[in-house]
């Protein structure tokens, strides 16, 4: 069986702190999953440790993605706006633990070290992120487009990339909720 010992999230936070120390920033527990921050330089080191440390063993690569937080909270709350953030989600089948590793990146020139040598499954995810967010992964064996045609302009994952037919051509027709409908709709 894969599950060897169920470890509580709090206990895992302790183990994470003791092994990685200052290499990871804030560690908290959200909805039962660990949530940690690390810098782009430290990413490879953190990933290798998370995978190999016997008390953690985050062996299962779940996904790698990114969030562009530059419009978070909408125009009303500019204080919440942030930059680009890389998210790596790992799972530890032995201890039934999840972890989100967040890596803040520079929105103007996003660069990061590739982790495809540590988790080979990250290969395609990094190619997808390159398409969608324009992130350059250094050390990736084959950083070419995966979804978009090679001559596609722009990075659709970014908030600055608007869906044309929704944003510009016609108003959004489907947002009518019951209350709005009763009041005459938007």
């Amino acid at each position, binding site marked *: *069986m*894969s*599950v060897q010992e169920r470890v509580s999230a709090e206990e895992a936070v302790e183990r994470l702190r003791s092994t990685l120390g200052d290499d990871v920033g804030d560690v908290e527990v*959200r*909805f039962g*999953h660990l949530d940690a921050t690390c810098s782009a330089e430290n990413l490879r080191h953190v990933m290798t440790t998370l995978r190999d440390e016997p008390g953690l063993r985050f*062996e*299962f*690569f*779940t*996904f790698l*993605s990114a*969030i*562009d937080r530059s*419009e*978070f*909270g*909408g125009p009303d*709350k500019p204080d*919440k706006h942030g930059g680009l953030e890389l*998210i790596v*989600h790992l799972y530890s*089948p032995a201890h*039934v633990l*999840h972890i*989100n590793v967040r890596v803040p990146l520079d929105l103007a020139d996003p660069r990061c070290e590739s982790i495809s040598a540590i*988790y*080979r*499954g990250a*290969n*395609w995810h990094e190619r997808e992120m390159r398409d*969608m967010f324009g992130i350059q992964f250094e050390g990736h064996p084959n950083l070419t*487009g*995966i*979804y*978009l045609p090679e001559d596609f302009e722009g990075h*659709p*994952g970014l908030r600055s*990339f608007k*869906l044309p037919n*929704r*944003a510009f051509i016609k108003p*959004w027709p*489907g*947002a009518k*909720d*019951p*209350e709005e409908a009763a009041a005459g709709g938007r």
Partner: protein
Amino acid sequence: MTQIRTPEDVAREVAEGGLATQQMILNVGPQHPATHGVFRLLATIDGEILAEAEPVIGYMHRGYEKLVEARDYRQITNLVSRMDWLSGFNNELPLAMALETLMEIEVPPRAQWLRVVMLEMNRILNHLMFFASFGAELGAITPTFYAFREREDIQLAMESATGGRMHFGFMRPGGLKEDVPRGFIAQALKSVRQVIARLDQYEDLLVGNEIFKQRTVDVGVLSREQVMSYGVSGPIARGSGVSDDVRKDEPYLVYDRFDFNVPIGHSGDCFDRFWVLVHEVVESARIVEQAIEGLPAGPVLGKVPRVIQAPEGEVYVRAENPLGELGYYLASDGDRRPYRLKIRTPSFNNVSVLPEVLRGTFVADMIAILGSFFFVLGDIDR
């Protein structure tokens, strides 16, 4: 043992005075009967051996992750059921669960049990479909018709409750759209019992067939290490002896109440993957039986606000899709629309391991391996 010859090796051999052979680039797809959709495999073949195989995807990319940023949650629930068109109901579940977690909605017991019934019936539908297509890919067309006979019964039961045959649209954050109609219970029970009763025929037709074993045993072996490193999940991972099943490890809904096994293979070859798939059908049928027998009464929709508006927060929710781990990373900033929804589909990770598995196999094995990776194109490309 010599290595598989890469194109560079061949060029060197020729330069050294070897036989002037050439490797041929074979485009399998985008339109090919064995790829289940617009999927292309750029194969470099040396005789009938694949020296390299690079999957090319994206022909069906519809940009769901961007589309959902402009839609509200009710629309998204229906939209995501189009990703993996063979298991629409399963696609809708983790999203509903993510919203329920963020909005702290209590799902009434009857809804949870009914969800399990629907999920597992949908899983049977999906697995039978792959049973059918795998046989057809290996040249046995007859199992296809056997599987479709059973599929039809289950599909009729699902249709009587939801009105849909593929995209059910029956899931709502907080429960289900409505209660199942009268007669559904009996119909569903009958159809899944029939599946259990007829599984012997399936075993005889394919699993026990000597030629089938010749084609699949020891072909396309996927190691445990590859499963982990690539994030492979579902029947494919379990075929390699990895026992992870979200339903067991982190039970959601009411899965901890049912008695079912997780079939596990040993060798990670095509045969074990297929064996796991076939046996999961029985386990799913058993779960449906138990869930129908213990079905509680009560409402099917919890207390849901009239406007579905998730509070600020971020959550990753996963569930055991028929093809593997399907998860949604939902980041909400308090709007009626998600700020960002990362869709972690099983097929994307599962297929990304293909280049490693396909190296050095025969062209004919390539078909068996592609078939045993049980992928849906919409699930890869999103």
